[in-house]
């Protein structure tokens, strides 16, 4: 079974703090993704990566950065957390598409509260 794990289920941070969210997958997937999930807005893509040290902006990258130093690990960084970044953050991974569209496998999510 594919396993995608996220470092924390719940996190409380103060405005202005630097926040790291970690994601690890154990299936040698090339692609990794960070989404945020908000009620009424569904999932919105923040960043994705298709290889080590490669990254692409998603729909809402402002206020976020990412790091992928190893294939299995993809980190989301909030340089200076703000209250409007309070949300559920979901990590996902998938194989690189050669044909078809492989499914994305999701982590359990990190619920971040910024005070």
């Amino acid at each position, binding site marked *: 079974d594919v396993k995608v794990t996220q470092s924390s289920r719940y996190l409380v941070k103060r405005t202005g703090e630097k926040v790291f969210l970690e994601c690890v997958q154990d299936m040698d997937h090339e692609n990794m993704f960070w*989404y945020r999930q908000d009620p009424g807005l*569904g999932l919105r*893509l923040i960043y994705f990566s298709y290889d080590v040290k490669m990254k692409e902006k998603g729909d809402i990258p402002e206020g976020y950065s990412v790091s992928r130093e190893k294939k299995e690990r993809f980190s989301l960084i909030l340089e200076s957390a703000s209250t409007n970044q309070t949300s559920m953050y979901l990590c996902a991974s998938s194989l690189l598409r050669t044909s*078809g569209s492989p*499914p*994305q496998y999701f*982590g*359990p999510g990190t619920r971040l509260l910024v005070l």
Partner: protein
Amino acid sequence: AQTVTQSQPEMSVQEAETVTLSCTYDTSESNYYLFWYKQPPSRQMILVIRQEAYKQQNATENRFSVNFQKAAKSFSLKISDSQLGDTAMYFCAFIFAFGNEKLTFGTGTRLTIIP
């Protein structure tokens, strides 16, 4: 850019009944994939079913089936003989057949199965 619309924020149905969740999308492309993902309460998101746009036959996975109407850009999910374990958020998602790996999600439908 493609959009995915789920017009039913919440639905509820009695156990053992059949329920249909609706999804419409907008794209000018002809080759793409559509998905339904399920997110149970406090559990990880999983893929329920997938449809290739070039296939006329509707996808089926046990009690889950889709009604794919390409001309109408409609992709509904039918759950037959609903079970308590079907209680979840359901997200419709779209991806182009070629190009980047970016999934576009709808806003979700919260489905409650009533015992």
